[in-house]
Each structure stands twice: as structure tokens, then as C-alpha cells.
């Protein structure tokens, strides 16, 4: 077996399929995107080279600026609301023990197994000003009027609630798994020393969860940047681009407006932002580790 693993042709033949998939499914499309981003290609016909025109227009595009702002809001929502709640719930679930632990774990994960299309239409009806559940609850508490949850002013907050709710179970499950991997002996030792639940949580659980938190937060920020399906089905970026996200805007420009070159320019800028965000997060977490 050792001879096999040190045999270079064998190593090459095992690595080659993955490398080919990466080359043709990831690297080549990215390179093509970069190329088309410098053209006025509409998806058919000839592609004329236009230099940096697409990128210049992008930086003056208020809809794209709005999409980045919404992605930032969502990332803040994930980091400040979804993940703290997910860690707390995971820690409480760990202490529940017995059947209740399994039941609540399933309940919290249910939104993640429901199809995105169903979720979008479910919330569209919940938010309906005439028949929606939310307005009916508001009426039961004496609110007189119809709240327009998907109005120009409210839509982004309504969409953020759906996205935070939808992804909660996934983050909670990852934190739950991380907490389960912490040696129980540490908790026993803390208990002997007189530590209460909060002290144990902040002094033992959280510090040992740092690698899990790093991965989860990084995935959350990338997820915030690449939101598309739920937004497309719930509001399609409207009304009037108030709930626009970068991936949805890219889709509209490339496949509805037939500005394929412009859509690719959006894609390239989007990749750069994702890479910068990942590097920044790695730096933040690395610095704290080294300190």
C-alpha cells in the first residue's frame, strides 16, 4: 500500500479527475467571466471588446450599490442575530438530554429541509396585507390598519427575517456538533470549581468553539453575499430594487436584460468581494489566535 501511495503515476491518476472538474467547472468559467466582463456580449452574436466600461458603469449603478448594502445588512444580521441565537440554542440543547434534545433539534432544523420555493411562497402569504398571518395577529391585538410588510420601506427587513429564520437550523446544528465534541471532563472540572452555566459557557464552551465559529461565520458571510433563490422568489429584488442582492441582480442583468457582459462584470466583482471577505475573516481570527 505504501508503494502504491508513493507511486507518482498512481497519485496523478487519483488527483486528475478532481483537477479536471476544478479546471472545467470552476477555473475555466471564472476566466471566461473575466473575458466577457470586458465585452458588450448579449449572450448571442459577436462580443465586442469595451474595456473597463462595464466596471465603470457598475460603480455608478445604484442598484448594484443597493445590492451590496443589502448583503452587508444580511451579513450583520447573520453575525449579530442568527449565530448568537444559534450558539445559545445549541448550548441549551446540549444540556436538555433525552428525547427532548432530539425533538427540538429536529424542530429547529425543519426550515432547512423545506424547499426554498415553498419557503418563499409561504412567507409571501404570511406577509400578505389582506389575508396574511402577521396582519391577522396584529388585528387580534387591536392594530387597525393593514401593514404592508413588503413595501418599499419594509421589504428588506421582511426579507432579512426570512433569510435569518431559514438558515438558523443549519448554523445551530454545526454549533451543536461542535459543542458535543467538547470533552465533558472540562465541564465536570468547572462544576467542581463552582462555575455556573454562564461562566462555563463563556469560559469553556465559546473559546473551544472558536474554530467552529470561524467556519460558520465565514460561511454565513459568503451566504449573505450569494443570496439569490429566496430573494428571487419572494420579491425578485423589488419593489424598485429595495431588496436587490448581487446574485439576483447578476441574474436579471445577464438573463433578462441580456447584458451578459455586464452580468459577468458583476460576477467578477462579486468573486473579488468574496475573496477579500474570506481573507479579512481569516486575518481577524488568525490575529486573535496568535495573540
Amino acid at each position, binding site marked *: 500500500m505504501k508503494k502504491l501511495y508513493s507511486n507518482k503515476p498512481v497519485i496523478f491518476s487519483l488527483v486528475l479527475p478532481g483537477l479536471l472538474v476544478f479546471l472545467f467547472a470552476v477555473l475555466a468559467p471564472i476566466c471566461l467571466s473575466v473575458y466577457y466582463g470586458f465585452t458588450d456580449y448579449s449572450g448571442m452574436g459577436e462580443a465586442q471588446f469595451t474595456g473597463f466600461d462595464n466596471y465603470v458603469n457598475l460603480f455608478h449603478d445604484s442598484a448594484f450599490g443597493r445590492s451590496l448594502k443589502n448583503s452587508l445588512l444580511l451579513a450583520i444580521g447573520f453575525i449579530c442575530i442568527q449565530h448568537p441565537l444559534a450558539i445559545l440554542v445549541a448550548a441549551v440543547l446540549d444540556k436538555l438530554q433525552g428525547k427532548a434534545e432530539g425533538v427540538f433539534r429536529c424542530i429547529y432544523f425543519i426550515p432547512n429541509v423545506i424547499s426554498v420555493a415553498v419557503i418563499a411562497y409561504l412567507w*409571501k402569504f404570511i406577509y400578505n396585507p389582506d389575508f396574511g398571518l402577521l396582519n391577522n395577529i396584529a388585528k387580534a391585538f387591536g392594530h387597525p390598519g*393593514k401593514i404592508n410588510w413588503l413595501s418599499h420601506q419594509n421589504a428588506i427587513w421582511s426579507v432579512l427575517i426570512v433569510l435569518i429564520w431559514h438558515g438558523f437550523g443549519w448554523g445551530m446544528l454545526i454549533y451543536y456538533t461542535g459543542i458535543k465534541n467538547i470533552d465533558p471532563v472540562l465541564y465536570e472540572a468547572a462544576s467542581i470549581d463552582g462555575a455556573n452555566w454562564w461562566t462555563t459557557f463563556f469560559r469553556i464552551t465559546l473559546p473551544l468553539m472558536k474554530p467552529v465559529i470561524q467556519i460558520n461565520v465565514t460561511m454565513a458571510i459568503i451566504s449573505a453575499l450569494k443570496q439569490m433563490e429566496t430573494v428571487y422568489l419572494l420579491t425578485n429584488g*423589488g419593489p424598485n430594487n429595495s431588496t436587490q442582492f448581487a446574485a439576483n441582480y447578476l441574474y436579471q442583468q445577464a438573463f433578462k436584460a441580456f447584458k451578459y457582459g455586464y452580468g459577468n462584470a458583476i460576477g467578477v466583482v462579486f468573486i473579488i468581494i468574496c475573496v477579500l471577505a474570506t481573507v479579512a475573516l481569516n486575518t481577524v481570527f488568525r490575529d486573535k489566535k496568535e495573540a
Partner: protein
Amino acid sequence: MFQVGYDSQDYGTTMNLFTNGQAAMYCMGSWDASMALNEDIAPEIRDNIRAFTMPVIDGGKGKATDIAAWNGGGYAVSANSAVKDEAIKFLNYMYQPDKLSKYGWENGVGMSAQDQTAYLTGNETELQKQIMDILKNATSVSGTPINDCGPSAFKTAIESEIQGVSNGSTSVEDFLAAIGAACK
């Protein structure tokens, strides 16, 4: 004129509200005339669907009989098609007044912008008859709507920007500037 939250309702949602009897009116075109024959819709809804023209305001320009109607649904044949000539012949055949348009009318699935009087079968729904009367009594016909008068980029831009000007979040001047920029 429209309910709170109209600007967040999509095609499917509004159709569902109307065909489930939760909305009394549905702002839609003649291509949905087939609802009157759709057996998935409850009879008490389907048999009572009727049409009327958009109301006009006092002192406003235009009349209720000025209608938005155009010959939509264009087709294209690829220049590289192996059966290009046959495809063009087929389209020329189907687009005669007594072919595709007549078949659509006879089956109640829609109504094109032409006089269907010559193709009446006696089995028309009340909805079809009303739409036919609206077209017959029209004092003017709009032709191609503005969102179809330009390339796809213009169509995408105007259909997004119109939401803002209709719900008051964008001024008319900003709307005109935005669609003007999309024309370039």
C-alpha cells in the same frame, strides 16, 4: 385603486387570489381569458369572470374605450436552422387570421387583437364575448406597449423603475431619467 401591497404581488400570487375568490378584480390581459374554461377553478368563480375597461378620471386624457392592444408573441427563426425555409413558411401559415388566432379563439384560450366576429361558434364564454365587444368598440388601440419598444435591457429597467413611480418611492423625473439612461 389597488390594494395595499399591490407592488409586492407577483403574477402567480395575484392569479391565485382571484381564482380562489379572495380578490374581486384582477388586472390582466385577454391572454387569461382561458380562466373561464379552466376546470381547476371553482365553477362559481369561473362562470362569473367578466371583463371591463380601466376606469378613467374626470378631466383626464383619453376615454375608457382607448385600449391597450397589440400584436404580441413574435417568433424568430435561427439563421442557422436546417429547416429555415420550412419554419418561415410554417410561421407565415400559422399567423394568418384564420389559423393560430382563430384556433385560440375557438378554444377559448386567448384572444388576439383582431375582429373575431367571423369565427364565432356560438360556444363562446361570456368573458370572450365581453372582450370581443371591448375590442370592437375601441376608439383607439395603443399598439406595442412601451416596455416592448426597446431592447431587453430597457424592458428590464422600465419594469423595475415603474414600481417605484407607481408606489411613490421614485419621482416622475427620476423615473424618466432612469429609463432614459436605459435607452443608451
